[in-house]
């Protein structure tokens, strides 16, 4: 049986064979590179030709390993989070670095497989190329984490079920259509009785203005539709979408575009939950849009309570809300800290008192985030206190003790020249012994200092500065 690590390695090698001709500098910024190479005259055409076999290559690859990797990931008994939302995390490297210090494994559905199979038929050629380059680089950038020598894979990319199972797609489409009907009735001035009617009715609203006029519950709208205002948000969403699709899709009515977005998101949730169930993983989102839809979905469809555990809430808080500096940890340091078994310690620290938060609605993560920040602050304060204490002890040990001994040593040379030789002979070994002791104890303190600073919390503290 091929190991998860080897499967990931093969996956990255496959992507690299498509990305490498773009040069190392392309890896610096996946979004910029995607936009740049996706629109460069001549090069974008040559790249589109070169990327033609990618869809088949990636599908063949996952056909070979899909069962194995899904089985391995499902069987591993640890804290996993499963990403969903956009095609891939907005910055996969940052997200996985951040979460790597809290959860055992971050699961990401292969974005390249999804793009080549689902986006390719309907998207504008250059938009498709931009997406492929962007998301492939995004994945290649997490190579050090995929490759890391760790008990559990810190990150694992898996193939989505949707691609290989048409019956499953039918099933989740039916379920999502009903959810979409509920969402539309709650959000817009419409009373759809059957989910089958939704597409046709929404299609009858041709312009964004027609949809804007229908909005009755702004709080249900995703940030992209609501900001800076509903008028601008929905219009920008519709106009922006036009550049993404082939002509037939670009010119569709505004109502259809909105409906298809809602349906697509809800289908993703169903797919995602099935994956979470299979992998025994917590759902994870890193974008406010998907989080908004997710929370609506949970409130509407699971009124009895949310599906997330405390760890799941904290992971999402780290994913969406917490500052980026948490992701600045060097991979090696992260791997070492995990090897030292510090993951459970930091998990316990960040999850402290989350129970106190009444989480009857998953409307926002603010409470969780505030608690996580407080936990972090307390831990940072404690860390600082320890460091200061160590520094104090070091000073006491070295600067306060050593001058006395050194003076003693010097004195051995100064007096009477007759005594000088004898005292030197006597005092020198003693002095040296003294220095060795000081050195030893100082070294011990320094080691303590290094250990404290090298703890995950210490590294996080340093990366904040």
């Amino acid at each position, binding site marked *: 049986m091929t190991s998860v690590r080897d499967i990931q390695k093969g996956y990255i090698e496959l992507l690299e064979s498509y990305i*490498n*001709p773009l040069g190392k500098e392309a890896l610096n910024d996946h979004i910029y590179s995607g936009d740049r190479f996706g629109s460069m005259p*001549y090069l974008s*055409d*040559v790249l589109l*030709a*070169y990327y*033609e076999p990618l869809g088949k290559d990636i599908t063949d690859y996952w056909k070979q390993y899909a069962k194995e990797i899904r089985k391995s990931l499902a069987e591993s008994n640890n804290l996993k989070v499963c990403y969903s939302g956009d095609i891939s995390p907005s910055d996969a490297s940052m997200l996985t670095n951040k979460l790597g210090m809290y959860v055992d494994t971050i699961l990401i559905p292969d974005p390249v497989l999804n793009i080549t199979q689902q986006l390719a038929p309907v998207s504008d050629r250059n938009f498709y190329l931009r997406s492929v380059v962007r998301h492939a680089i995004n994945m290649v950038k997490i190579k050090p984490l995929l490759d890391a020598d760790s008990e559990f894979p810190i990150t694992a990319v898996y193939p989505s079920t949707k691609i290989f199972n048409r019956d499953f797609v039918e099933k989740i489409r039916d379920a999502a259509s009903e959810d979409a009907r509920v969402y539309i009735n709650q959000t817009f001035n419409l009373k759809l009785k059957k989910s089958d009617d939704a597409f046709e009715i929404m299609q009858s609203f041709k312009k964004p203005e027609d949809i804007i006029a229908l909005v009755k519950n702004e709080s249900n709208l995703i940030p992209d539709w609501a900001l800076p205002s509903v008028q601008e948000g929905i219009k920008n969403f519709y106009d922006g979408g036009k550049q993404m699709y082939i002509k037939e899709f670009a010119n569709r009515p505004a109502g259809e575009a909105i409906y298809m977005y809602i349906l697509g998101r809800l289908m993703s949730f169903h797919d995602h939950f099935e994956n979470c169930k299979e992998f025994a993983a917590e759902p994870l989102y890193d974008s406010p849009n998907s989080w908004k839809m997710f929370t609506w979905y949970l409130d509407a469809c699971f009124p009895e309570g949310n599906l997330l555990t405390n760890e799941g809430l904290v992971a999402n808080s780290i994913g969406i809300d917490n500052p980026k500096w948490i992701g600045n940890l060097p991979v090696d340091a992260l791997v070492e800290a995990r090897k030292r078994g510090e993951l459970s310690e930091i998990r316990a620290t960040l999850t402290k008192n989350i129970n106190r938060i009444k989480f009857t609605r998953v409307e926002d993560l603010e409470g969780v985030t505030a608690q996580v920040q407080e936990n972090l602050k307390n831990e940072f304060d404690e860390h600082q206190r320890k460091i200061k204490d160590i520094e104090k002890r070091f000073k006491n040990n070295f600067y306060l003790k050593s001058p006395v001994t050194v003076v003693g040593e010097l004195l051995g040379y100064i007096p009477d020249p007759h005594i000088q030789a004898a005292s030197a002979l006597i005092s020198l070994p003693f002095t040296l012994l003294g220095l060795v002791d000081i050195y030893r104890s100082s070294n011990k303190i320094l080691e303590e200092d290094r250990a404290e600073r090298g703890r995950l919390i210490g590294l996080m503290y340093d990366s904040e500065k």
Partner: protein
Amino acid sequence: MTQKSEEDEARELAREVFQKCMLVLLAHVQRRIADDESYQEPRFLRAMIVAYYQINDELKDGETVMGVSVSDENEDPQEGYAVILKKHKNFVEIVSHQDIILNTEISITNLLKLIELSIRLDNIDTKAVKWSVATEMLNKLVPDMVFIKFPNNQWKQGRDELLKEIWKGRIHGLTPFDPMVAKVKAATSFSEVPQVLRQFIATLYAARKSPGKNALGISSPDKDIDKAKVFELARIVLYGPGSKYRKDS
């Protein structure tokens, strides 16, 4: 630091585009060879590689080398290229890239189009492609022209249209009493129609389908076309005789 002029920036961008396109082509060739050892790289690239191999330490800066690659005598269509490279201190300059069969210089933009087309054709496993695929490729490659394949199953309507035009005296050099016209009337299939008249039928069809555009009607009686022929057609249209009359040549 002096600011780069617009021209410098454009030159830098062009250099990057060309360099990356070449890297993509080399990566493509590498992948193809990994799949099939007998794979032959495109001949226009081989000429470049032959020239490149001659660049060594003994060559002085500013000196040039030439690489040539020509197809075998019995190969159809014939292809042949000559590449002249000049050695500089830190880089190699492509002085000239010639198509020696069509006896013309290949511009960098056309070379990039050849790279694109050769990769696209390589991606298809079969030796021949459907005409619909070929015309789609050519239309993408040469956007100021419209390649239209005459639908062979409509040949009778096409024939009647041609005969009408001949009767109206609109087809130069052809009268209703020409022996070739008699052959058209007697034909029982499109392949029995003489090639010259098949071309007229396809041209009339293309002009009707894309009025006012630079349309090229394709009259082949076959459903498929060899990939090598598609490449040849592209070379002729991109930089062969007559290409100077195209808008974006």
